[in-house]
C-alpha cells in the first residue's frame, strides 16, 4: 500500500465518528493501523487528526499511540499539545505524554517538565525522570537531585544520573551529607572509575571504602583489576581485603585472582582464593586442581 493510500485510509478512519464503528478489537486494530500510517502524512495534515484522536472518546491505548505519533511531528503546536496533555490528561495519558516529551526532545517542553515534576505525585515524578533520561537531559536531572530535600527522591534522581553516565554531575554531588552509598552505586553504573578509585583507596572510612571497592568491580574496565589487586595486597584490614576479593569476583577478573593464588604462601588464603575462582566458574580452576593433585602424588 502506498503512503498516499495509507494516509487517505487514516484520514477516513479517524474522521469517521466513533459511533459509526463498533468498539470491537477489529475496529481498534484498524484505527491503530491508521495512526501508524499518519507518520507518512505531512505534519500539518497529521496534527489535526492526532489532536482529534486525543480530544475524542478513543480508548486509552489509541490515545497513547497517538501521543507517540505526536512526538514525531516536527511542529511547535505538537509540543504545545504534548505539554497540555501532560498537565491535564487522564492519568495514564498524562504519564505517556510526559514520556513522549522526552522522546520529542523539545527544549521548551523539557523545561516545562520541571514544573510538572514539582507539582506531581511519585509516579509523575518518576515519569519526568524517565523523560529526562530519554532526552539525555543531564542538567535537568542534576537540578532535581541538587534541590531535593527528600532522600528517596534524591536517590532516584542520582540513579538516573548514573544510568545517563553523567559523571560530571555526579561528582558535583559528591559532598552531599549521608549520600555516599547512593552516589557510589551511581558512580559504578556510570563507570566513573576515577572517582571510585579515589574512594576505594581512601581508608578514612572503611565502610565507604568497601562500598567503593565493590563499585569498582561493577564499573569494570582494563585498569580496575590492577587497582583491586593493589588494594588487596596493600591492606591489612580484613573487611577491605574481603571487599577487594569480592570486587575482583564481581568484575570477573579471574586472571588477577589466579595471580594472587600463585603468589600466596598462606594455605588459608590460597583456599579462599581457590574458592573464589570456583565461584567465578573460571577455567583456571582446572589447572590449579590438576597441579595441586599432582603435587600430592
Amino acid at each position, binding site marked *: 500500500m502506498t503512503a498516499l493510500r495509507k494516509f487517505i485510509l487514516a484520514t477516513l478512519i479517524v474522521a469517521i465518528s466513533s459511533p459509526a464503528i463498533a468498539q470491537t478489537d477489529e475496529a481498534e486494530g484498524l484505527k491503530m493501523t491508521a495512526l501508524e*500510517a499518519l507518520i507518512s502524512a505531512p505534519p500539518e495534515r497529521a496534527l489535526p487528526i492526532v489532536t482529534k484522536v486525543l480530544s475524542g472518546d478513543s480508548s486509552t*491505548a489509541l490515545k497513547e499511540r497517538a501521543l507517540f505519533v505526536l512526538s514525531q511531528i516536527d511542529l511547535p503546536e505538537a509540543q504545545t499539545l504534548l505539554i497540555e496533555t501532560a498537565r491535564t490528561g487522564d492519568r495514564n495519558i498524562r504519564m505517556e505524554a510526559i514520556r513522549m516529551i522526552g522522546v520529542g526532545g523539545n527544549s521548551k517542553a523539557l523545561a516545562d517538565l520541571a514544573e510538572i515534576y514539582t507539582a506531581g505525585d511519585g509516579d509523575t515524578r518518576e515519569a519526568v525522570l524517565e523523560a529526562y533520561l*530519554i532526552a539525555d537531559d543531564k542538567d535537568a536531572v542534576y537540578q532535581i537531585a541538587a534541590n531535593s530535600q527528600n532522600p528517596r527522591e534524591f536517590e532516584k534522581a542520582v540513579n*538516573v544520573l548514573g544510568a545517563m553516565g553523567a559523571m560530571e554531575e555526579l561528582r558535583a554531588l559528591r559532598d552531599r551529607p549521608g549520600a555516599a552509598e547512593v552516589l557510589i552505586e551511581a558512580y559504578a*553504573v556510570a563507570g566513573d572509575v576515577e572517582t571510585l578509585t579515589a574512594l576505594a583507596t581512601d581508608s578514612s572510612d572503611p565502610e565507604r571504602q568497601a562500598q567503593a571497592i565493590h563499585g569498582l568491580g561493577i564499573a*569494570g574496565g582494563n585498569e580496575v583489576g590492577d587497582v583491586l589487586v593493589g588494594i588487596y595486597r596493600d591492606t591489612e584490614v580484613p573487611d577491605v581485603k574481603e571487599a577487594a576479593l569480592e570486587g575482583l569476583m564481581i*568484575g570477573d577478573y579471574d586472571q588477577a585472582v589466579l595471580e594472587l593464588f600463585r603468589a600466596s604462601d598462606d594455605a588459608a588464603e590460597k583456599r579462599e582464593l581457590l574458592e573464589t575462582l570456583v565461584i567465578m566458574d573460571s577455567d583456571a580452576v582446572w589447572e590449579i586442581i590438576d597441579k595441586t593433585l599432582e603435587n600430592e602424588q
Partner: protein
Amino acid sequence: MINDDILTLYYYRDGLTEAERARVQAAIEEDTALRARYEQLCEDVESFAAAEPVAAAPAAVARWHDSIERVARIEQQRASSRNRVFHLPSFAWGAVVAAALVVGIGIGSYFSGNNVPEPSIDNGVADTAMPEPRSPSVTFARGLLVHLRESRQELADLPMGADSERAMLIMQMIQQNRMFERAAVQNESQDLARVLRAFEPILMRLASDDISPADAEALQAQLAFELNVMLTKLRRNVSEVTGPI
C-alpha cells in the same frame, strides 16, 4: 551469538567499539556459517545501493532538495552534541537486570565494552568487504531499518510467560537496542537516539518476572506500534534521499 543487527553494524563500521569489531571479525573468520551470512548481508546491502537509476519528477527533486537543506540545518544545530554511552541503568530496572545476569546471561560483558580489552584491529575481513564510504546518516538509517525490522520480529516471536528464555531474549534485544542508540548518537541523530532510548524502559518492564500477561501484551503492542511507526518514517526518509530500497 552474533545476529544480523551486529553484522550490519560491523558492515557499516558503526556503533561497535574496536574490541567488539575485533570479536565479530574473529568470529567471521572462524565460523563458516557466519561468514556466509555476512557475505549474504553484504550482497543484500550493496543491492540497495545498486538500484536502477530512475529519472525523478521535478516536484520530487524539489522535495529532495528541501529535505537535504532541512537535514543540513538540523545537522548544524546538532554539531555540539557529544558522544555518550548509554550505561546499564540502575533506576527502576536495575533489579531486573541483576536478576537476568544472575541466571547466567553473559551478553552484557560481550558487548558492553567495559570489561573487554581493546586489541588492535586487523582489518583483513572487514576491509576486503567494505564498500565505498557512504553518507553516515543514510547508511545508519539503513542499518537501523534492519535492526527495527528484526526487533519487531523478535518481539512477535517472544514466548509468553515469565521464563528465563523470554528474559534472555529481551535482554539481547536491549543490548542490540543500546548499540544502535550509541550509533545514533555517534551519527548525531539525536531524534533517533531518543526513540531508541525510550524503547529500553519498555523492554525492561517486559523482562520483569512479575509482569502480568495482560500488561505484557499491552506493552508488546505499544512497542510493536512504535517500531512500526519508526520503520515507516525511516523507510520514507531513506527513500526520499536515496531512492527506493
